[in-house]
């Protein structure tokens, strides 16, 4: 086995194992840190697919941003220790959903026309430069619209949370 395959299997195992830990650990802070490893592992797998922009996005947004949101959500929540998400009554619906998703994934896996390249063309190259060129030339309008979308999300977040804070303050005064 070559080094890159060993690293791939380490990455894949770490991703799956930590994903399992996320749903099985009792302390949700530990779950959150296991989720961190899952995000990192997925980022590493993106690198293996030569999707370096996706990998950078994964690290910046998920490891850097979404993890912060998750940790803040935990700090805001009341119950942190001894949390169990296992409910005996939900095994059957859970299995049904899982089975459905599996069917869809398998169908996509088998039926998609995967472009498998051979020979000298199989060397995968970094994609960020191509993406950057496309974003700033051909897809300039969508690129600028993204900033408007982010602006809307920003203002929405400020408005929503300020309302919540104000309501709480008034509640505290009464």
């Amino acid at each position, binding site marked *: 086995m070559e080094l890159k395959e060993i690293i791939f299997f380490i990455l894949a195992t770490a991703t799956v194992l930590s994903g399992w830990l996320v749903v099985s650990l009792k302390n949700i802070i530990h779950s959150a840190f296991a989720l961190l490893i899952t995000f990192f592992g997925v980022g590493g797998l993106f*690198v293996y697919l030569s999707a370096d922009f996706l990998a950078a996005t994964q690290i910046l947004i998920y490891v*850097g941003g979404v993890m912060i949101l998750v940790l*803040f959500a935990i700090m*805001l929540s009341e119950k942190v220790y001894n949390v169990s998400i296992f409910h005996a009554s939900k095994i059957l619906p859970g299995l049904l959903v899982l089975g459905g998703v599996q069917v869809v994934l398998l169908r996509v896996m088998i039926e998609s026309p995967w472009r498998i390249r051979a020979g000298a063309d199989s060397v995968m190259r970094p994609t960020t*430069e191509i993406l950057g060129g496309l974003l*700033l030339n051909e897809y300039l309008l969508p*690129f600028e619209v993204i900033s408007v979308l982010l*602006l809307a999300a*920003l203002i929405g977040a400020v408005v929503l949370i300020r309302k919540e804070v104000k309501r*709480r303050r008034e509640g505290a005064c009464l």
Partner: protein
Amino acid sequence: MPETIIPAGYFPIILFFVIALFFGLVTLFFGSLIRPNRPSVEKLSPYECGNPPFMDSRSRVFIRYYLVAVLFVLFDLEAVFLYPWAVVYHKIGMYGLVEMLLFIVILLVGYAYAWRKGALEWD
């Protein structure tokens, strides 16, 4: 497994992770060999300025801090779009700079709004 070749630029990152991992493990391992190990209840309790802890150190934080986290994620997203731009900057030059400035100015409006509304204040 299909033939995938990791871009050579990632080798230093792997090396960095390996060295970081070994640095931590080796330090802990040799530390555990050398240091005396005589635990007692007092030594193992959380240190709180010398006083015995009187309550759970964990408490719920105010919902307002969540806004700071949300704002951080939004500006994080903005930073992601700076990355492909920075990679092609030497090719596009002035044209790209103007486009990116427009992108950032639109977001600065949101920043100014959040600032104006006092969303960044820690009271």
